[in-house]
């Protein structure tokens, strides 16, 4: 379960269709003095990360500028409601302030942005947020059980993974990939699976629905087989906590998740942690793909002192601050800035390195179409997830594609 920003990314996506994914909402320095800013942030999976902001960063900023920064933690899953409410209480034509100027500066200062950073937040040429880090979704697997089945390294293609899964299920170690209505671990592998077979929902024009294709059909057929031969029925009803629980209770040998499984295992099950590894998603006929889960910081348009909020963001993203904050979470948030490609934190746990490499092939749901309201609705309605889930539950490929096509046409108001 990674919840956090995966959630936040999608929330903001959904809410705004801007693609500004993430949390920080600099708000209101209302009175003349003393000034204060509020940072709304989803509570982190890594507790020291939140503590570091409150205890170190906020007080350092107050000391330097006299501006108090309140850190408001929103529980996982409820950020969306809070952001919607906050945005509704504000006003203005856009929800987030254009922060292109500081984004360019930050990029120059820290080795340049990854391309996926722009995909996350740039709308009509404007940066609507500052991407902080990606919470990647990768393959989490048990090296000991894979070894018993004859695999020293993680299978490179989906077909090879299927083969391994069949053997492992027979050996009593099935796979468990979420196919239910969670908010992250289902998207984490189903979108990449669709893309790696060449399937897409919409063309890059954001209008032409192309879900009804041979590529989609092949992805669905694979998924059905993968589900039937390597998993068990429960996964259809899983939400994001289930695969973590199942993995840590040794019910499954492989799943798609963020770094949280290895994190928890190291803390609570050190022996198991030794036999866990993380790898990039397998390749399909059309390549290898990953899910983009950016955690970003944006400034609400209703923020009264927008300059103060932007100044704060600029300060926060400078290497002394951002670097220290990244370090605390030890790669849980993978930086979008190349200056951190070889940061010491990557050496702390080399098994996390694939998360850095996955950034190059990571995309948001709805890719390659530009961000839009329709995409948000597609996610909220679980169109792609349910297309796969219904096929796994027994419906024909033709039927599930027709359902998804009907929904997408309605959502995109296409004919």
């Amino acid at each position, binding site marked *: 379960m990674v919840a956090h920003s995966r959630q936040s990314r999608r*929330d903001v996506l*959904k*809410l*705004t*269709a801007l693609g500004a994914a993430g949390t920080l909402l600099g708000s209101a320095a209302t009175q003349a003095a003393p000034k204060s800013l509020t940072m709304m942030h989803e509570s982190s999976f890594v507790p020291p990360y939140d503590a570091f902001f409150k205890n170190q960063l906020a007080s350092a900023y107050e000391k330097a500028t006299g501006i108090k920064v309140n850190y408001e933690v929103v529980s996982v899953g409820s950020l*969306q*409601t809070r952001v*919607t409410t906050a*945005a*509704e209480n*504000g*006003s*203005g*034509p856009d*929800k987030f302030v254009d922060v292109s100027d500081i984004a360019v500066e930050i990029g120059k200062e820290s080795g340049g942005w990854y391309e996926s950073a722009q995909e996350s937040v740039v709308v009509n040429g404007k940066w609507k947020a500052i991407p902080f880090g990606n919470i990647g979704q990768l393959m989490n697997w048990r090296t000991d059980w894979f070894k018993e089945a004859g695999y020293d390294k993680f299978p490179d293609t989906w077909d090879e993974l299927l083969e391994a899964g069949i053997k492992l299920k027979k050996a009593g170690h099935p796979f468990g990939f979420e*196919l*239910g*209505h*969670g908010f992250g671990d289902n998207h984490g592998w189903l979108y990449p699976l669709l893309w790696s077979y060449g399937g897409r929902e919409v063309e890059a024009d954001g209008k032409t629905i192309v879900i009804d294709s041979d590529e989609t059909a092949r992805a669905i057929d694979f998924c059905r087989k993968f589900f039937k031969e390597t998993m*068990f*029925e*429960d*996964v*259809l*009803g*899983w*939400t994001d906590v*289930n695969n973590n*629980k*199942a993995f840590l*209770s040794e*019910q499954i040998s492989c799943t798609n998740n963020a770094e949280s499984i290895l994190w928890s295992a190291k803390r609570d099950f050190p022996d198991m942690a030794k036999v866990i590894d993380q790898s990039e998603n397998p390749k399909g006929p059309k390549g290898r793909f990953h899910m983009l889960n950016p955690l970003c910081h944006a400034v609400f348009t209703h923020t009264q002192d927008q300059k103060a909020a932007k100044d704060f963001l600029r300060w926060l993203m400078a290497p002394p601050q951002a670097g220290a904050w990244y370090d605390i979470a030890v790669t849980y948030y993978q930086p979008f800035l190349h200056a951190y490609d070889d940061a010491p934190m990557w050496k702390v746990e080399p098994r996390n390195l694939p998360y850095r490499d996955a950034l190059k092939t990571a995309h948001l749901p709805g890719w390659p179409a530009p961000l839009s*309201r329709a995409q*948000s*609705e597609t*996610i*909220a*309605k*679980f169109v792609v997830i*349910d297309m796969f*889930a*219904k096929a796994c*539950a027994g419906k024909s490929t033709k039927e599930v594609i027709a*359902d998804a096509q*009907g*929904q997408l046409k*309605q959502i995109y108001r296409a004919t």
Partner: protein
Amino acid sequence: MTAVLAASAERRRPAFSFGRWLEREGVFGWLMVAPPVVFLVALVGYPFFYGIWISLQDRPVAKPGVFVGLDNFINDWHDPVFWQVVANTFVYTIAATLLKMVGGLGLALVMNQDFRFKNLTRALLLLPFIVPTVLSTIAWQWILDPAFSVINWALMATGLANPGPSWLGNPYLAMFSLIMVNTWRGLPFYAITLLAGLQTISPELYEAATIDGAGRWGRFRYVTLPLLKPIIFIVTMFSVIFTFSDFQLIYVLTRGGPANATHVFATYAFDIAMGAGQFGQGASIALSMVPPLALIILAMAIYMRPAKS
């Protein structure tokens, strides 16, 4: 002395007295009714009509709405998930309400007997109703969890099933599980209310019925049931409304999955409004609850109407 003073004060009082005016029945009555009316208008009436207004707009989050007439409702009409949601809501409401009605009545009849620890049992009975739904639902999440389910553990330990059923993964079982949890939570409300009703029935009526030769069933059928009918109606009406618009339980357990098999009006409306950020569409889904709910309640009112002799 006092009397004299009072009398003179009365004489000096002007023709109009605010205090007296307030005490007039017509004024005082309205005054007493005003706070609840203001409360209802502000917290129920206003959101309701605002909801109707929003449902007629294309209204994304934090942006001004554009009036689109019935477009949102037309979209719902063409949305296959919407119809699945309609079917799910009816199955959920009808099954859970029937179970609660029968179970609650049975429980009330049992609780109406004399036995040791009667009061304690009655108090304990209310527990599922008292515990916050989200908390008790999280407990249910564990009970129904594939890996840690105590039910599956028992089934496997006794050799009845291996592996145990997938309570939330199978679309039918997921709906079944939700109905069960809803019944568990709602049963005390039925039981306690019906118990209160049972206690108002005069024992003389039972005595008379017994003298007339009525057995246990006869007494229940011709004394208890007719006298309980108005209470059953009220409780059922409340229950239908609550069940029809249930949110917490489903959102915590399945979030409408697997593949929308347990999505109901409230969860779907929430996903569209707060998730997709489309208030107009979300409001139209939520408002679609009103006509069927009104029809159900009307039908019930007609059915439960006391027969005129």
